[in-house]
């Protein structure tokens, strides 16, 4: 893939990561934070896939395998985080009290 296309993907990945990071620190509600972490993760995956595509010849399969593994782990982490968030909402934790106010 040409250098400028890869650079574009790298920059979009960095932008997604930064947007997600902003969400993690700015949002109070647990659900929004979980989504923000997922946006950060998508940025990391995009950067890894773009890095794999640099240079001549076929893309590097190792980052691709890492991204595939990462997506599955991210899904699992999200599911556990959502279950925890639901539990804390039912028990009325302080963070969500703030969000309700």
């Amino acid at each position: 893939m040409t250098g400028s296309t890869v650079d574009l993907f790298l920059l979009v990945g960095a932008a997604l990561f930064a947007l997600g990071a902003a969400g993690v620190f700015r949002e109070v509600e647990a659900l929004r934070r979980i989504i923000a972490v997922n946006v950060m993760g998508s940025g990391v995956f995009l950067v890894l896939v773009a890095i794999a595509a640099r240079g001549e010849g076929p893309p590097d399969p190792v980052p691709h395998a890492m991204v595939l593994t990462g997506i599955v782990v991210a899904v699992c982490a999200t599911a556990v985080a959502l279950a925890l968030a639901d539990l804390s909402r039912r028990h009325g934790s302080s963070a969500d009290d703030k969000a309700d106010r």
Partner: protein
Amino acid sequence: MIGRVAGWALPLGVFAAVAWAVLALPSPAPSLTDEALAAIDESGVSNPVTAVLLNYRSTDTLLELGVLLLAVVSVWGLRRADHAAAGPESSPLLEGLIRGLVPLLLVTGGYLLWIGAFAPGGAFQGGALVGGAIVLLALGGLTGRWFADRQRLLRVGLSVGLAVFSAVGWVVTAWGSWFLEYPEGMAKTLILVIETAALVSIGLTLGCLFVGGGPPDDLETGDAP
């Protein structure tokens, strides 16, 4: 006002730092493409990504199946599924969608598993489609009773991927190989066996994670905590 500016300075700073870091990486990147392609004939598959996932770095994938199982165990430990909320919704549109899409998703999942050996695809892509089929069934309120009635089968299905993968890893040591080092000529068969078991586990795990809780002990009197 100052708070707003400070609030946007953080993501902009993060973006600048990350963009600088990724653009400053050496190009062409140090790559394992040549190593991966050099051993592709011995790996049992011709798709390099599948070769990395299930041969060169199969321990990663084995532990990943462990993560899937752990996630289901954690979610089941945290809460029960709200079957009452997701009762049988008899909408003709949803019913038609389920009738049409679920068989198609399952067949396509199996197809993706098979072509994973030589083209983009594999157990995770196929498992995602099977998971999608279970999500559709759950939206139609059809999984609650099924899961509750077949808890043992469900548990076996959730763990079969990890179990078969570990079993294959240990069995090959009888041929004098290391853990998960496939004997010559058997790689293709063993990878297919592992991927088939993994597909079942991944699909069920994703479906169960969507349902978001353990099956109630008794649907009739099961009161969610």
